[in-house]
């Protein structure tokens, strides 16, 4: 079974709107990371939040972590067409990094 699972599986919004993706996981973690993958192969690291942190910002990205609920959210504000991609959460479980199935985001110009 998946360690991390994102929802929704797919999200379509208008340019300028905010996009929120959620990630739930099962076991204790050292940190949680979010990655983006454009069509093609390479994944790009967006942000890392440690288990003792609750919120982190990076540009238009805001990540929250609730270890009591074993969940995280990624908020992208003022979305752009270039934000169209798949977004994955990845949980570092002290011995390996496990990815969820991802959320496919479409930003319509």
């Amino acid at each position, binding site marked *: 079974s998946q360690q991390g699972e994102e929802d929704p599986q797919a999200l379509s919004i208008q340019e300028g709107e905010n996009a929120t993706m959620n990630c739930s996981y099962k076991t204790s973690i050292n940190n949680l990371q979010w990655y983006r993958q454009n069509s*093609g*192969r390479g*994944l790009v*690291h967006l942000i890392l939040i440690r288990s003792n942190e609750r919120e982190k910002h990076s540009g238009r990205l805001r990540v929250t972590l609730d270890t009591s609920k074993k969940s995280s959210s990624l908020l992208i504000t003022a979305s752009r067409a270039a934000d169209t991609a798949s977004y*994955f959460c990845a949980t570092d479980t002290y011995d*390996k*990094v496990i*990815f969820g199935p991802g959320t496919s985001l479409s930003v319509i110009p």
Partner: protein
Amino acid sequence: GAGVSQSPSNKVTEKGKDVELRCDPISGHTALYWYRQSLGQGLEFLIYFQGNSAPDKSGLPSDRFSAERTGGSVSTLTIQRTQQEDSAVYLCASSFQGNEELFFGSGTQLSVL
């Protein structure tokens, strides 16, 4: 090099043949990961190296899959007697010590005919 390098970029092989995929991590990165991604799916964990040792091989799908890392640097993933279900993109990533952000290569697209 500046980033994680994987070769070949694409590999087409016949069912039953062996293939070897290579990953050159970022210099100085001690942790190295292999993942597999089927079309439209998430990343499936295969194996993780810390230095030359692999503490966790639990993700390898079958005994046809093996991986090694030498000199704390280059890693090879070998698939013996390939099957059509092995077709996927194989991604390699490295990180400075583990527990930090992963830097990904562009992957190897494996097609088994």
